[in-house]
């Protein structure tokens, strides 16, 4: 389909595969990244993200499939001639050169005149907010500054596509939060197409226009952050993007997409299959986000929602804006994690308090159980 509209996508991968001996690291991955957009590949460690990146950059030969940049196949183009640049996982700045020489390296290789290089380097340093550091050595910079230099080193070459392989992985949490915003701003300022790899969902959700969720060498779902969050198409995506309460159970009633599910621990809940066609008797897995569950001290407040229950607070997990409580349903069954609104009403909540809680049936995503596709991570 992307072939019909040449020029709209900066980067296209078509049925890309990579085998290492018998092991398939990347399995028929296809995607197109529109010009000037921020595309993320999100997946757990070892799912094949770096392998895709290295094939695009030219360091690995795909076993099959095609890579096109601006609609031209680049399979025969060596890495030093490809119009893509890569920010490496550990940045790979050249420690033997100063900052200006690092940024100017690619320009020197293009044979640009010295004064021109100097001007471009200064301009790039200005743009990343670090003017005047050109003479410094690499190890005289902080982690975040190195980060920006590594990006500038690629962006001065004005590549068609910039690849970033978990570039924030080495930074501490605070700096990572800061760099997320900064990266997005840099991308907007340069207008370059970014392909960004991460295993951190919040990085992907905050920065990306489009996210591909990857697992075991395949793309599970490609969509905006919102789509992945509210309408996951597979159990893996539901489990990987955001937190969820998850239960396994059996479908006891199925009615126009709304399901009644009895969990293994005996909890009766309703959920929606969003067109996945589950039928009575199927084994199902149900995902409900803690923040999709409404809580109240009065049962009447929740009368418009389907899954109404009450439970005792067994654990309070205070984490500022993201505080949670774990409730033990009075009807018995699995403990349920709910998000606590931080508007003050629940500031005095204690262990042992009884709360009413409920969620809308369509907020609960049900998937047919398909064991090998289930992610190995624990929901909580």
């Amino acid at each position, binding site marked *: 389909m992307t072939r019909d509209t040449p020029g709209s996508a900066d980067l296209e991968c078509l049925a890309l595969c990579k085998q290492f001996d018998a092991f398939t690291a990347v399995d028929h991955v296809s995607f197109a990244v529109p010009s000037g957009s921020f595309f993320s590949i999100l997946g757990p460690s070892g799912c094949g993200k770096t392998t895709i990146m290295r094939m695009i*950059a*030219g*360091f690995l030969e795909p076993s099959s499939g095609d890579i096109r940049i601006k609609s031209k196949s680049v399979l025969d183009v*060596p*890495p*030093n*001639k490809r119009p893509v*640049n*890569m920010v*490496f*996982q*550990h940045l*790979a*700045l*050249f*420690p*033997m*050169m100063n900052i200006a020489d690092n940024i100017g*390296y*690619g320009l020197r*290789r*293009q044979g640009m005149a010295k004064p021109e290089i100097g001007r471009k380097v200064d301009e790039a340093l200005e743009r990343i907010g670090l003017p005047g550091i050109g003479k410094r050595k690499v190890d005289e910079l902080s982690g975040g500054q190195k980060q920006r230099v590594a990006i500038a*080193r*690629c962006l001065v*070459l004005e590549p068609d596509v910039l690849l970033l392989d978990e570039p924030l992985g080495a930074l501490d949490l605070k700096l990572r939060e800061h760099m997320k915003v900064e990266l997005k701003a840099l991308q907007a300022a340069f207008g370059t197409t970014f392909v960004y790899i991460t295993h951190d969902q919040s990085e992907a959700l905050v920065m990306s226009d489009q996210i591909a969720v990857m697992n075991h060498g395949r793309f599970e779902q490609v969509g905006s952050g919102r789509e992945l969050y509210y309408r996951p198409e597979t159990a893996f995506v539901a489990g990987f993007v955001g937190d969820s309460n998850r239960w396994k159970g059996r479908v006891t009633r199925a009615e126009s997409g709304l399901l009644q599910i009895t969990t293994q621990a005996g909890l009766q809940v309703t959920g929606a299959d969003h067109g996945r066609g589950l039928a009575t008797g199927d084994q199902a897995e149900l995902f409900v986000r803690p923040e999709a569950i409404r809580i109240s001290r009065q049962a009447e407040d929740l009368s418009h929602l389907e899954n109404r229950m009450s439970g005792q607070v067994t654990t309070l997990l205070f984490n500022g804006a993201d505080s949670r409580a774990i409730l033990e349903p009075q009807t018995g069954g699995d403990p349920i994690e709910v998000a606590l609104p931080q508007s003050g009403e629940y500031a005095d909540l204690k262990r042992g308090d009884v709360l009413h809680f409920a969620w809308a049936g369509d907020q609960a995503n049900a998937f047919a159980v398909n064991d090998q596709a289930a992610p190995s991570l624990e929901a909580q």
Partner: protein
Amino acid sequence: MRAGNKLALILLLTPLLLWIGLLIIIPHIDMFLVSIRERVGVGKYQISLANYWTFLGEPLYLVTFARTAIMSVLATVLTLIIGFPVAFFIAKIAKGRLQSSLFLLCLVPFWVSELVRTFGWMILLRETGLISNLLQWLGLVDGPVELLYNDVAMIVGLVYTSMLFMVVPLVTTLESLDDSIIEAGYDLGGSTVSITREIIIPHAMPGIVSGSIVVFMLSLGNYLTPTMLGGKDSLWFTELIYSQFIVRFNWELGAAFGFMLLILSSAIIWLLLKLTGQTLEKTMT
């Protein structure tokens, strides 16, 4: 506890200090003292620089001195040129078992003594040797060829003897170069030549310098290889020292020669460090 540590430190350092003191510092002081005395009568000596004047006044000594220095530098450069790709292959391209067996292969020649190693070259290169016979058998030459007893044979022997001491430090420094830095070079449009020049060689500089220092000193102080493989005109400075000490019993002049050699090697190493902007501490760690 503290006192125990101190004692352990003293015990550990004692052999090292003894070694440095007894085998290096004291002999050198003594040699220096011997080199600045002049025999004026039977059993009578006076302090003078006469031995050094003798050295400077005799063209044969000066020529041999310069030749030894130049040939040692040449041998070092050749060892580096051959050793660098070998080290790069071992450190960056070979993987797993191939890597360790190649490394071992560099070590194998050192399982036999230097004499045997040098003799091996003689078997290959002499008039009735393997290469001469091979060339005759191939019809490339009419009669037996003598490949021994010339400067080329001597340089070959020196390079061969020192190869390991160049390869080991190079492999160590090259292994510490992250593969992704080389890849980043390619990614940014670098060619193999420019990456080698701007990234790999600067990174390997401490290894290059320390390997070169060791190889240079080994070549300069080598006695066996120049004597056995070199020809009549390939006089090595160590041979002059040997003849002063052993043949002529002129210890005073021999000591002065030894001191000149020490000054020469120190000067060239200093020059090398200055030229490459390295420090001795950096290259030896």
